[in-house]
């Protein structure tokens, strides 16, 4: 995988759960990425079509709501946007693991938090709001 530049490499975090989305985005920003937060597949498509950001990767919940599902979104991205990696995750742990792998790839060498700490943080937040994962 080519080296990633914080100036040119943008990651979309797509998840309908604001607590998960917000935490993963903060984690990736601390790694040096420019991060866009999307709550649905429609928002991902809107951002992609706007063309205002150099997208490098999309980290999406496998049950992402929207006009198209996560798998269809991945197919659409692959057909429309060369070189954009799409990571689908079905659990918070897998999403954090994918985010951790992105952090390991760059643009900064250091990782600010262990991915497992992100998972635990999200679960604590979810417990406070008494909403199921």
């Amino acid at each position, binding site marked *: 995988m080519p080296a990633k530049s914080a100036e040119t490499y943008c990651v979309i975090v797509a998840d309908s759960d*604001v*607590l998960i989305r*917000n*935490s993963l*985005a*903060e*984690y990736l920003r*601390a790694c040096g990425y420019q991060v*866009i*937060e*999307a*709550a*649905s597949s429609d*928002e991902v498509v*809107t*951002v992609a079509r*706007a063309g*205002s*950001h150099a997208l490098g990767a999309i980290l999406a919940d496998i049950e992402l709501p929207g006009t198209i599902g996560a798998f269809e979104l991945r197919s659409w991205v692959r057909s429309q946007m060369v070189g954009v990696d799409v990571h689908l995750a079905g659990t918070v742990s897998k999403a954090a693991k994918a985010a951790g792998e992105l952090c390991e790839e760059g643009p900064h060498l250091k990782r*600010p*938090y262990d991915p497992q*700490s*992100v998972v635990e*943080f999200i679960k*604590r*937040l*979810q417990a*406070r*709001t008494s*909403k199921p994962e």
Partner: protein
Amino acid sequence: MGAQAILLVEDEILIRILVADLLRDAGYEVAEAASGEDGLRLLESGGDFDLLMTDIKMPGALDGLALATHWKNLFPGRPVLVSSGHLTADRMHPADELIVKPYSDARLLATVERLIGPPCQPRAPRLTA
């Protein structure tokens, strides 16, 4: 003292990105929410913010003014900035300030700075709750 944190609630993603980037580039911390319900969930999860900036008309059961009412209960005295293309100043209770769309970057930053001051140094990472 750390950077002031702003809860930004806006359902139009391209507007949300532009505003969030602008505020972050200026030095503020920004948490983004795509709906009133998302904003409330961030507040209920223990989020501690210095300013609520919210759109008024959003999908779902909780519009910007209803969210602002929750905010005022949780954070009495902390300001609310509403952005709208429709609202008039005499109907914006419980908001403290109205910024009418479309607005310039300079106007938004000046408004935010008037409400919570210029950006300070970054806070320590928040991932410690």
